[in-house]
């Protein structure tokens, strides 16, 4: 079957079985390997992408549910940067605060945080922690991730 959708602002069309995971379509059919697989069952959040403004686990979304919709992945974040190809404010804040260590949870973490910021989430610590509670990180203890997200909200 054929499915059409927007990925990071660009149209995409794939001919795949309808139950193929969005994660596999992104990584293998479209070559967008920034989105990672950590558990394949919706527990770790490493594959988080934004689907029509909502954070979803791309490992749990069949491609048939994506037809006609808008997908944003980590590769699309820098489209919002002042200069194309550079880091956006959230990515830059992660870099400055040391919020990425091994980096494998980082794309998903960024997408969860981006959705939270876009929805106008408040800067208080508890709300930020809640927003990323579906994204596991084993390296950082979350301290610097929370600080990095709060810093962006404060600047805005």
């Amino acid at each position, binding site marked *: 079957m054929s499915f059409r959708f927007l990925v990071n602002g660009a149209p995409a069309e794939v001919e795949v079985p309808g139950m193929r995971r969005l994660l596999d379509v992104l*990584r293998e059919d479209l070559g967008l390997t920034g989105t990672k697989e950590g558990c*394949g069952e919706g527990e770790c959040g490493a594959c988080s992408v934004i689907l029509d403004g909502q954070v979803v686990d791309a490992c749990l979304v069949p491609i048939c549910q994506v037809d006609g919709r808008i997908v944003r992945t980590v590769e699309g974040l820098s489209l919002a940067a002042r200069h194309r190809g550079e880091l956006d404010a959230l990515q830059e804040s992660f870099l400055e*605060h040391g919020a990425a260590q091994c980096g494998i949870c980082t794309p998903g973490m960024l997408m969860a945080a981006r959705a939270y910021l876009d929805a106008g989430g408040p800067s208080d610590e508890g709300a930020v922690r809640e927003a990323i509670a579906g994204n596991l990180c084993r390296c950082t203890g979350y301290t610097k991730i929370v600080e990095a997200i709060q810093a962006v909200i404060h600047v805005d």
Partner: protein
Amino acid sequence: MPTRTATPAIEPGAASALLVQPGTVTTGRASTLPLRREGPAKLTGAAKYTDDLVVPGAWYGLTIRSTEAHARLLAIEPDPDVDWSTVVVATAADIPGENIVSLIKDDQPLLVPVGGEIQHHAEPVALLAAPDRETLRALKGRIRLVTEPLPPVFDPEQSEHPFAHYEIRTGEDAALEAAFASADLVLEGEYRVGHQEQLYIENQAMIAVPGEAGGVVIHGSMQCPYYIHEAMQRALGMNAIQARVIQEETGGGFGGKEEYPSMVALHAAVLALKCRRPVRMIYDRHEDLVATTKRHPAVVRHRTGVRRDGTLVAQDIEVVMDGGAYCTLTPVVLSRGAIHAGGPYRCPNVRIRATATRTNTPPNGAFRGFGAPQTEFAAETQLNRIAEALGLSPAEIRRRNAYRVGDVTPTGQVLNESVAAEEVLRLALETSGFEAARAETLRRAREREGSGTIPSGALRTTPQRIAGGVGLALAWHGAGFTGSGEVHLASVASVELSADGRIRVLTAQTEMGQGTKTIFPLMVAAELGVAVEDVEYAGQDTAEVPNSGPTVASRTAMVVGGLCIQAARRLKTEVEGRNGGRPFAEVHAADAAEHGATRIDQRFEPYPGVGFDDDTYRGDAYPAYGWAAAVASVDVDLDTGEVAVHDVVAVDDVGSVIHQVLCEGQVEGGTLQAVGYATIEEIKLRDGRYLNDRLATYLIPTALDAPRIHTILVEAPYSGSPHGAKGVGELPMDVGAPAVVAAIHDAVGAWITELPATPERILAAMHGTPSSGRAVGPGRAA
């Protein structure tokens, strides 16, 4: 003792070399330090982890595993109704070299041979490769293992197969018993800890590509390229050129990618050789949980003699670790656990007896802390119970016993310098307001008295349900390899001025999130007086970089970082010497053009005055120690037993801080892993099989479970390393769990002696269900 707090360790004169280029970052506290070098690639999704690599023509590999804990393998029977011609099956018979995953003992096969013994559940027996994953999945269940069951052993104390045994003692048994007889109080306790999974978020992943001249190139997720390199030479019958290992971006390790990647790489390579094409061996989370190494479970028994004032007079400690089915790194894990078992305290009479045995469970291996978190949880909880028995504050008993310069450890090591136990303790107490917090939790406990269904009486209001508590722990962690390990390794690190004028650092130290790629160029740039951006860090490819030893044991910054600094100093001297003494930064480009490449290979030299006897277990177990204190604050729901750890003050002496942000990141991450170990991380077994083998059932802390972590870095430099560094990775892992357990005790008045402190265990302890610890004092003089 020169102790500084939280200031960068780089000399002021070199500071200009550390500044990032103008305009790169203008805000934030990291602005005076270089940012994580590979950070932008990780933040944009451009960084390529192993499973991100596109390898044309690659097949997918899969491991067929045992479903029994102990059995004889009689036959491997592919289903005759299946057309096997389109796929490749490999068994032990296809291994070109020795069927051994080379490590300490040669006891672990790549694949159980027909006629051999299956030693644990999920043990690799056969390999399968197919052009696509659908075929692979469909055929996975069509290979039958014919077995004959053998009796399994699951209790490490019942096992008759020791992997290692160590005895550390300060004198004869008679002297120890005399010391116990002189004690005012003798307290016994038994402590238990279970498995813990490293849970790097990137699963084990390897791609084997057949190369020239019968060789194989491994691309993968790993900590130690040269471990795999060595293992390939033996199992694949290759020479050091035919076997080549390249580390790809690695999504966390924590010890879990120290030795196990050799197994994954060898499996991929065996299939690749048989298929004559590249093979991807990418574990999913279930396989990674069910089959890879965990932290060793342990039973630790203490008998401690103290005087009324809290002074330790005798420690008798027994440690039993469960090695699982194969040796892996167990003797070294046990050794570190044994050496740290008394805690960071002076005691004139000590006997530590430690044993690790074989059971029919999946092998246990390296995990951050490497034996010390197990034994230090026991030591700290024991000391807290002694303080309670004596009516002393947990802070006071530590002040009285903590190591100072000049003290002697149980292996007979005189602590000549760099002892910051008292300093980290003081800072943790002051920063957390520990004594005031304890007084407050006591006051609130008194208010709650008589309320509630447990232990007696009326129903509780919601505020009365929640009991706050604060707990303290202190730890030490030996820096670098244990004993004569570094001498045996004889690591080499190189700094090169290449013919085209580039400055390159060449080591085998991998980046897995800790910041190797950032701190090595930082240290070398500071020595050479050049901008940090002008120093390259070569990729971890065994065809290019020297064997600087494994990326383990918190040794990267301390040991290999020290070698890089020494190499840079020699390079600077050599280049400046032939250029009339003009600064390296000014002349290096012209020097390279004129003289070609200059490469300095720096080999490890034993630290001055440090010696250890492996046979008697006496001497300097480590060149120096890191010191850590933690104060944890918790809330415990008295009705449900649920624990929320809401704050941890973590104070860590790392010798010297090379990059404050990265160093804090190590402390914060290690602290949360320790909080998980203390509260929620648990493996349950049935018949030698892990029951919670998915991420839905093996839980690690989320951002909501994680405490606010307040980190204070202390610098008590070690004079034997050129920059004073003592390592940071493992230190915070030792101290978090006992601090949390002490806080739970402060909240509910019951000691948890078995990790994790689950709600069930907390409620049982509160109800007075017999715990494994018991007091046999007050002692003879009472």
